[in-house]
């Protein structure tokens, strides 16, 4: 990806030079800008992403100042943007064009690990999620709704009908692409489980598949194709692990009889094709229907006696924004360590990662990673383990997290970094 400086930034640089060189006593700025800090001074980090998105929607360019003040934003001052920031409760400062040019000069200075990335287009966002209520909550939908970022919700039908081409960014969360209904067999008599199973089976039949696992594999292959053709994929929790398990098992059946009515293939493990996966390799799917874990990609939560939210955390890698702009964008934050949180997929085994996968965050002193990024074809994928960054253990049936109580959440920021990341790409995605 080429990240060129915007014409506006060039103008600011020139304006800064002119101001510095000027001897005329005209202290009035040529124009006014709005600076949105994203460090500890920001009152509402999550809403800031929504405000930036809204500005992009109106056709305004926003400069993302990577590694500067927690990944702050700079944009031209306009009454609309100002009011939008105010209404959302986002901290901002009006600064002169001269001050803006000084900031940009500082960020772009040789030897600094900072960089300016112009955001030019509000990406079209889709969330892959089933219709209707499920007794758990999707952290990204919570984040998008709290940040007031418009998005569409799509599911198997839309994916198989080719609707993905309309979107720049696709999110997955608590999904089971292996067709085992989340391995929630203990809930098989609950109305939501029955409904989910019935709907999935009906959808499979509608698209000509005998089993749900076959439908899900077809969906997974389409999603992978979407990435290879330039799409951006972000996934969390079991939506990461099961994605690659389904791809690896494309030539075999790893689904126990309890879920699809027939046993796993006798040589299922030998038939796994790790060349077909995005992020993981050499893993072993869990073929026991009664066990909640999908595979050994997930190292699982800490042992019960060690499961202490105050001790569980992971650290973000710091990248040079000039040399590694994409990982930098994805890790912008106002803290270096983020509180841990568990999920059906809690943390990835480091040994299961493919060589070209970039680790963005890892748990210290343990061979496990929490946040990874990689490229496939012309697109990229980002996987983030755990279920809800602000609910250490989110159980089935728990109430949704109230993000107004966590408006500065570093964990949720990582999700929202992903929605702006496609905005930095200048050309429209080809899908």
């Amino acid at each position, binding site marked *: 990806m080429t990240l060129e400086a915007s014409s506006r930034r060039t103008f600011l640089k020139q304006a800064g030079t002119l101001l510095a060189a000027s001897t005329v006593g005209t202290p009035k700025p040529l124009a006014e800008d709005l600076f949105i800090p994203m460090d500890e001074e920001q009152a509402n980090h999550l809403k800031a992403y929504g405000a930036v998105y809204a500005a992009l929607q109106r056709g305004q360019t926003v400069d993302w100042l990577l590694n500067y003040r927690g990944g702050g934003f700079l944009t031209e001052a306009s009454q609309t943007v100002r009011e939008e920031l105010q*209404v959302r409760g986002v901290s901002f400062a009006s600064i002169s064009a001269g001050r803006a040019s000084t900031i940009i000069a500082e960020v772009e200075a040789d030897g600094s690990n900072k960089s300016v990335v112009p955001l030019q287009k509000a990406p079209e966002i889709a969330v892959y999620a089933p219709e209707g209520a499920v007794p758990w909550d999707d952290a990204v939908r919570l984040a998008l709704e709290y940040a007031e970022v*418009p998005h569409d919700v799509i599911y198997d039908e839309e994916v198989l009908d080719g609707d993905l081409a309309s979107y720049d960014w696709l999110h997955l969360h608590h999904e089971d692409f292996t067709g085992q209904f989340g391995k929630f067999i203990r809930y098989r*008599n609950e*109305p939501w489980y*029955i409904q989910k199973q019935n709907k999935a089976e009906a959808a499979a039949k509608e698209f000509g598949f005998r089993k749900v696992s076959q439908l899900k594999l077809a969906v997974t292959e389409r999603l992978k194709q979407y990435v290879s053709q330039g799409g951006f994929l972000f996934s969390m929790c079991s939506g990461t692990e099961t994605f690659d398990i389904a791809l690896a098992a494309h030539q075999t059946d790893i689904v126990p009889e309890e879920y699809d*009515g027939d046993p796993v293939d006798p040589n299922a493990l030998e038939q796994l094709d790790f060349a077909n996966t995005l992020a993981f390799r050499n893993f072993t799917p869990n073929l026991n229907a009664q066990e909640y874990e999908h595979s050994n990609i997930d190292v699982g939560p800490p042992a019960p006696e060690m499961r202490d939210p105050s001790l569980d955390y992971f650290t973000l890698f710091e990248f040079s924004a000039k040399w590694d702009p994409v990982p930098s964008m994805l890790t912008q934050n106002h803290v270096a360590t983020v509180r841990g949180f568990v999920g059906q997929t809690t943390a990835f085994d480091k040994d299961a990662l493919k060589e070209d996968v970039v680790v963005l965050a890892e748990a210290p002193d343990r061979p496990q990673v929490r946040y990874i990024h990689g490229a496939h074809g012309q697109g990229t994928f980002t996987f983030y383990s755990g279920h809800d960054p602000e609910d250490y253990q989110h159980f089935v049936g728990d109430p949704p997290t109230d993000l*107004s109580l966590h408006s500065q959440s570093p964990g949720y920021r990582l999700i929202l970094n992903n929605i702006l990341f496609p905005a930095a790409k200048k050309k429209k995605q080809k899908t």
Partner: protein
Amino acid sequence: MAVILGLGLLLGVAASPAHAQQSDSTQLKKFQRANGFLRADQPERALPLLERLYDNAPENTAFYRKLKEAYESIKRYDDALRLVDQRIGSTPTVPLLTEKARLLSQKDKVEAANDTWDRAVALAPEETQTYRTVYNTLAELRHFRKAIAVLREGRTALGRPDAFRTELAHLYGLNGQFEAATQEYVAFLGEAPNRLGYVQSRLQTFVEQGQGLEASSRVLQRTVQENPLNEVYRKLLAWLHTERNDYAAAFDEYRALDRLGDRQGQILLQFARRAADAQRYDAATRACEAIQERHPESGVAPEAQKLLGDLYRRWARRGADSTTAAQDSARYAKARAAYDTFLQENQGHSGYPEALLRLGTLQIDAYRALEDAQPPLERLVSNHGETTAADEGRYQLGRIAVLRDSLDRARLLFSRLAASAQSSDLADQAQYELARLHLYRAEFDAAMARATSISEDPSADVANDAIELKALLQEARGPDSSDTALRTFVRARLSQRQHAHGPALAALDTLLQRHSRHPLADDARFRRGDIHRARGDTAAALTAFRALAERHPRSPYADRSLFRAAALLEASGRSAAATEAYRRLLTEYPTSLLAGDARGRLRALSTETTGGMSGRAGRP
């Protein structure tokens, strides 16, 4: 152990005495080894053993079953089918054909499987068990449509339209045919009216889906129309209405049930309580009123009468923000009338003391009718003095004394209550009232001592109020030694509490004229705004609130004043000015506790004017 013994018996069936014993023992060991391999997920080691066992004794059911199971575990469906075919031979049975069909289905040979199931049914169409056998396999494979077709065919063939009711109902539900499922359950209830609980539990699994709930309700409504005297159908329909939160419709059903069962209002009273818990006061009050109209002599009528008063009182309080004053007033009037009626007709009822308390409190808070409030409260205290309601009655009498400016009497009442109240919360409240009385009398040191004492127990409900009182006394004394400003201020506070708006405003004006720079000036201006607002003088209230924000921009009341000004502007239809005031609050007081509310109002105003956000809306 039981399994092994069973196998032993099974192995012994075809054996001859002497040689057979040794042979049986060997076979049993081989069989157990094979079983062990299968349990260890090593079917490739189990298979040769089982195949040999089966070849030696193909008639042995245990060997047949285990070998078939082993083939299936590694998806060798053709081999499993071969075994079944061998067993079928020339004498097919329903279970064997069903088993063959199942294996064909696993092989994805859908048509052949369906043909085989049909053959199984055709083999013994006059037997109920035939359909059950086929249905069980189909349901296990989740072939719901075919299973439904087989059971329906069974009904016809057996000439029993009532056969397989619960099975069909369950299948229809799983297949999303909610109307059909409900029809089956309805018919089942017609035959077994005592199984209502069972049917509710079955319906529960799909009424949680909106579609299922609507479909079930439609069916039950038709059924009730056709069978108006059937109680169990009405019970089920009433339950479905409450599941849909349609308490008005549920009321109709419960009223009918009450009449059908000649329950004299008992069912209606139960429903009223449930509806009240769900805050559906419209339906709850209708139920209580129906009891009064139809069963005024019933044993539950007094309870319903008192509940009616409680319901209207709660409804009026809850609706204070969402309905017009006139509606609230009408509800308060109905509450008062209900309590009056109850008290006239039910002097010996256990709820009598509480009704006296509620009526007295209502007269104070809703009507400010102190003359009317006092008699029921005094009757409560004198005739029912040992009840907990009486303690609260004493507290309310103390309040009346304050509102009448009889501060000595108030002090006496609160002092007695503080010493004798059964509830510690009420005793704390009385203590706090005593502190306020000291304040009103300008006995500031005494007020401080009492407030300090109360605030030492942070668990007390009034601890925060006491702390606020302490803060006032610490910050607002002076500038002269007689604390003139504070004396004037507390006089205004007492007048405000007594709803004496004129004297309250006069006192506040005096304070602001004589001590315009006193620390109490911002509080005084805020109270002026509030008093004007209470009098309905919007213009004066706006002026007062705006003046506060201008003159005391750093006051803790500044953001609240701006918010109140904005709310007044919004209520009077001046949206642009309201928007500006909310924005000003956000700009000047971004960390205000009211910022979130201001943002919410701005969003609402923006939606009203623009019709919502541009672009695609996020689907929740």
